[in-house]
């Protein structure tokens, strides 16, 4: 699988990770489970950064002519 395709597909993986993290953050927040909130926020931010990297990798490959 080439880099472009991997980057493309990974974005959908990251969106899934972020959805799960968001639900964990909300549940943790209302359940006063601070650890869970911090863990979810960390995971979400890391996955967002990775998604951004993947997006630019894909963009570079997609638009190069």
């Amino acid at each position, binding site marked *: 699988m080439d880099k472009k395709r991997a980057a493309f597909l990974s974005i959908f993986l990251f969106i899934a990770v972020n959805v799960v993290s968001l639900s964990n953050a909300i549940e943790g927040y209302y359940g006063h489970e601070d650890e869970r909130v911090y863990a979810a926020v960390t995971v979400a931010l890391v*996955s967002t950064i990775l998604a951004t990297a993947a997006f630019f990798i894909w963009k570079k490959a997609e638009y190069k002519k």
Partner: protein
Amino acid sequence: MTDDKKQTHHEDDKDMIKLIDNLNRKDDVHLNRRAFLKASFGATVAIGLATTPFGIFTFLRDENGEVKRVEITDIDDLAIGESRNFNYPTKNEPAILVRTPEDKFVAYNNKCTHLQCPVFYEHKENVLLCPCHKGYFNVDSGQPMAGPPQRELPKILLEIKDGKVYAVGREVRHG
């Protein structure tokens, strides 16, 4: 005249061809795919960043809500099988302290997790009972046993020292 007509027809056809030409399917699919990925990426970022307020609020809540130590009662004031109401961690959060038949102290916020009615200790059956819709909670764990409630009662952590019972913390979710 016929020539004229033919001419216009011809022009029309040309236009039509141009229109069809424009519908370059391959290009279209390609562009949609790009737009789709961009939208997905946007959603990823939006959802990812949406978690941060929860982190920030949790942090702020931590800051000003440092664990409070509150005296509830003297051990001798509460006989075995009795219960006592108090408020913890704030004045607006009612709680119940129970001295169980096994002579253990347990405490929970006693707002029913169904629709917030006050929960009482039923000595005879040794359960916490919500009279509103007959919700039952286990007195040893705070977990719902019967009736509409689905979530456990927030558990108040206790410390017993020098013949007094203190509330020292709270777990909203617990085993």
